[in-house]
């Protein structure tokens, strides 16, 4: 399968501290890759480097075969991002937010595209509400609608289900699975919920102290460590370091 994301020997140091230490991996078309690790493992720094918001100390990032250091703005028109920790402006209404980002991404017939997503995520009743007044679950659905405005080929999702109740989290995962199947989007997915990784991800990479510790399909990783589930694998890896 075509590799949409190629990360080669990526390293980031801040003074004497190495946040990301010589990591390499790839992500193929239509694949969901779990990028997991304990707090402070280097996940957020890596994602920011992949999006060109932090300059790597060394190494390279190729998206759609293009070097992010040279073609960042061109590449970003086909990439999108959503995080539980990065909200949209609370003092704008939902439709104002969606129209603003649709225009930023240069979406043609953006009102139609917004309507499609509003229907898909069932957020019609929120359309005229201030984003700041939404519940976590409602905000997550709006964030995901924003993340799909430009029909991205590659999506970065940073703990999209954090702070959601189990029902809404389950619905969100189903939305994501449906998007992956229908649109073939590649997703880099960070989460602390290992059940989500087992349910959603084709592959997972464990990172700790900036280094890749292990990687593989969820089933292979569970077998490799001889444990019951991925949650136990996570705990073992986090404590063994």
């Amino acid at each position, binding site marked *: 399968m075509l590799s949409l994301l190629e990360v080669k020997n990526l390293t*980031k140091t*801040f003074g004497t501290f190495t*946040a990301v230490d010589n990591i390499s991996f790839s992500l193929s078309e239509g694949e969901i890759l779990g990028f997991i690790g304990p707090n402070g493992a280097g996940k*957020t*720094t890596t994602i*920011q480097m992949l*999006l*060109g*918001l*932090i*300059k790597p100390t060394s190494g390279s990032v190729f998206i759609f075969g293009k070097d992010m250091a040279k073609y960042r*703005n*061109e590449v*970003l*028109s086909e*990439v*999108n*991002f959503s*995080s539980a920790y*990065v*909200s*949209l*402006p*609370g*003092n*704008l*209404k939902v439709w*104002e937010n969606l*129209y*603003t*980002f*649709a*225009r*930023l*991404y*240069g979406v043609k017939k953006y009102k139609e595209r917004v309507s499609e997503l509003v229907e898909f995520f069932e957020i019609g009743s929120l359309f005229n509400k201030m984003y700041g007044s939404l519940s976590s679950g409602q905000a997550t659905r709006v964030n995901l609608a*924003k993340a799909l405005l430009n029909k991205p080929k590659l999506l970065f999702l940073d703990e999209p289900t954090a702070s959601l109740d189990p029902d809404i989290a389950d619905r969100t995962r189903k939305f994501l699975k449906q998007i992956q199947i229908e649109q073939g989007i590649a997703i880099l997915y960070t989460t602390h919920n290992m059940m989500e990784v087992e349910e959603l991800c084709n592959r997972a990479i464990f990172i700790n102290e900036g280094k890749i510790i292990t990687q593989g399909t969820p089933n292979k990783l569970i077998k490799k460590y001889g444990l019951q589930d991925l949650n136990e694998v996570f705990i073992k890896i986090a404590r063994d370091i």
Partner: protein
Amino acid sequence: MKLHRIQALLFRYLYIYPRSIPRILDIFIWPLVDVLIWGLITVFLQQSRPDFPLSLLLGAVIFWDFILRAQQAVTISFMEEIWERNLFNIFVTPIRLYEFLFATFLVGIVRITLIGISLGVSSFILFNFNLFSFGFYLVPFVINFFIFGWILGLLATAILLRFGQSAQVIAFAFTTFLQPLIAVFYPVSALPKFIQPIALAIPATQVFEGMRMVILQNKFPMHNFIMAGILNIIWFIIAINILYKMFNYVIENGKLLKLVD
């Protein structure tokens, strides 16, 4: 430069204005308070010196407001993204920094137009002062003041990028710190001799000197306007360089998400 991205940000900022009381106050009330204070001071001075020109202080305060509000248009637009924790969302779109800055420039034009109308109407109604009494000279005055205000906005944004939200007080007060040097209400000759060359290196000082010459001598001071234009270009080059350096510093050090305290 893509117009759809600039339009996106322009609309994004303008959506907020009609429902934001602080922004409405900023455009319609605070300038009115300035006009009232300086208009009344002028009326008081005219009681002992009837030939004291109304436009000397009132014109000065109106133009000063142009600089201040143009600077704030840039600074507040950037702060808006910090307050709303939206910088990350903005900069993972294909937008380029210069498009962002151009959008703030347009926001500034909208603000200045509204404030200009507000100031012009209020000073005419309250003190019978016609802003258009400057005639043709009004155009170069306003353009120079607006550009200088925008340049100060770029510098204030650079401060915010380097030091984060905790520096917002400095960023907002930045223009006011310069006010004594700009010689808004008095001639440069009133400043201590050793400070005068520094004051004259500020574009707005040249324009205020020119404005006084128009009022007091009815002469168009071409020299001041040429100097103001040249200085604005020099200040712009310096400001944009500092801003890009600070932006690169943020990208180098992974500070974009950490600008919020």
